[in-house]
């Protein structure tokens, strides 16, 4: 059995840099021993020797397979350990895994991006791709919600995004502080102000499950069809290659068929949200 035939064998990677994003979220910049060419939306398993592995979608541009950024919320055993790592640490990467976003279907379409919390991280990889092919797509609107102003992710970039032609960005927070002058409320409040064609656009959303429920409900009310909506679904994963059985929605395994699932495919399964 050769090493490369073993999908469970991680590629060694070094942690080059850590960026503090919010009180609970950091971006980790890895340099893998071999390039990991990924499509935006594809994910990797980060393997911490002796601790375990967990799935994360890169937040960096797919055009940089030698320098991968992954933006991670501190929330469990693996992410706690990750947040304690210093630059120079060695760890493993398995991937890329999953299908990623349907990048072949973007041409000529208006794109609506709806993120919640750390869910903006995988969407940023898509945004980098969209900005790269900006002349091939229509309008791009980004709607983002976070718990509080200090939890707003990548906030230094909002200005750069907003000035790109055809790009609109807006954010809202659940719990504002006195200096907050922006919108307040969950991300669906931003969906009343959409300036693109909801009947033909594609929607990409990533965030907590409860957010999906309300985002989908709102979009359908506004006239979008399930086929237009892609959700980056959350399920526990292990193998990453569609065999261990863990991450199913009906007959689909998110690791193999997703994690970004067309809503029309999964809406019939009663335990989706």
């Amino acid at each position: 059995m050769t090493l490369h035939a073993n999908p469970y064998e991680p590629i060694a990677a070094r942690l080059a840099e850590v960026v503090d994003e919010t009180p609970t979220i950091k971006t980790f910049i890895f340099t893998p021993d071999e390039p990991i060419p990924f499509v935006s939306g594809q994910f990797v398993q980060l393997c911490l020797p002796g601790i375990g592995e967990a799935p994360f979608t890169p937040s960096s541009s797919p055009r940089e397979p030698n320098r991968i950024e992954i933006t991670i919320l501190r929330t469990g055993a693996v992410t706690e350990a990750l947040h304690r790592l210093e630059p120079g640490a060695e760890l493993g990467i398995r991937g890329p895994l999953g299908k990623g976003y349907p990048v072949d279907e973007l041409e000529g379409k208006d794109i609506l991006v709806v993120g919640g919390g750390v869910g903006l991280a995988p969407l940023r990889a898509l945004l980098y791709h969209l900005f790269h092919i900006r002349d091939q797509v229509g309008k791009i609107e980004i709607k983002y919600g976070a718990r509080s102003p200090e939890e707003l992710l990548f906030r230094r970039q909002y200005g750069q995004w907003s000035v790109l032609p055809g790009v609109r960005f807006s954010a809202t927070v659940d719990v504002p502080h006195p200096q907050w002058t922006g919108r307040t409320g969950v991300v669906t409040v931003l969906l009343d102000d959409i300036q693109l064609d909801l009947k033909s656009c594609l929607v990409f959303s990533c965030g907590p499950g409860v957010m999906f429920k309300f985002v989908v409900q709102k979009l359908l009310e506004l006239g979008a069809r399930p086929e237009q909506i892609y959700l980056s679904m959350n399920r526990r994963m292990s193998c990453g290659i569609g065999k261990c059985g863990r991450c199913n929605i009906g007959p689909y395994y998110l690791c193999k068929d997703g994690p970004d699932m067309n809503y029309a495919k999964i809406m019939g399964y009663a335990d989706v949200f």
Partner: protein
Amino acid sequence: MQRTPRLLREDRLSDFLCALPGDHCFVSVETKSGTDYAEYPTSSTALRFHRPTSPIKQFFLPPREHIAAYWGAQGLPEIVPFSLVGLRNCDLLSLRYLDHVFLGGICEDPFYRARRAAAFLVSVDCLPPQKTCFCTAVGGRPYPEGGFDINLSPVDDGYVAVAGSDAGESLLAGLPFLEDAGDHLLGQVEAARSSMVEALAPAAGSVDPDRAARTLAGTEVNRAWEPWAGKCVECGACTAVCPTCHCYYIIDTPGIDPEIQPGAYAKVRTWDSCLLAEYARMAGAGAKLTPRPRLRSRLSNRVLHKYVYSPDQYGMCGCLGCGRCDEACLGGMKIRDMVDAVGSQR
């Protein structure tokens, strides 16, 4: 290669078993609690008994095995050739199912592939059925129709041996103690097979997989599962004995061999069960950390995977009618009763 039926006399069975390829030979044996597998030589070889209680997935997907090491594959266990004797048709069909999972899809599982290539499979016709057997209800037969290297059909004087692969035919052709199997022996085989199908007749209509695929679809969170969840003690025995259940989890452990790689870590996979509450639990402190917080949803997910999702995923029903889960259930549940009750309540 032409496949000639041959007579293996009972008193030559041990010679036959000794001639099988591989470093190990596991045969089905009679034990105090039923039938199981043991390494040959053993005095309790049981080829004319009930199908073994344990599934054969253990030989292809061990309950616990090392699958990777940081960094490099040093010390991963060697997979050696072996023979497996006494497989029933449901066992062979379970391999067909597991082949879809582990050899199909986006990539192969190298460990399953290596074990599959290392295995020489000797099956037998079923004689007699277990009380819980219902293979004919889900489209199976109580005798193998393919997927074996050699099949043995019990007759009065021994077994009619037929090869199902070139490797099997070569082996049979080289055994001087085998005799031509005349038509009367082939007639005996046919008669025994018919009587087995007849013995299973009471179970034959007990579940209809096509109907189940329709009636169970969409019942993921249906309350009709509630009474069954009330009987389930969440032990995971059904998933352990099911020949098609294959869920596993990958964990990090200290290195495979500390002498080879001191201070190193490795990855181990262990069997898991979708019925357990922690199975799909994600990290965090949010409102819904598992998609199936209720036992009734986990139970429905298991049964729907067999009858509704598997036909979509692999083109075959995930339930082979072996009845092992019925045998193992501490709550006394029978999968056919669940399918029937939930399907008819919609």
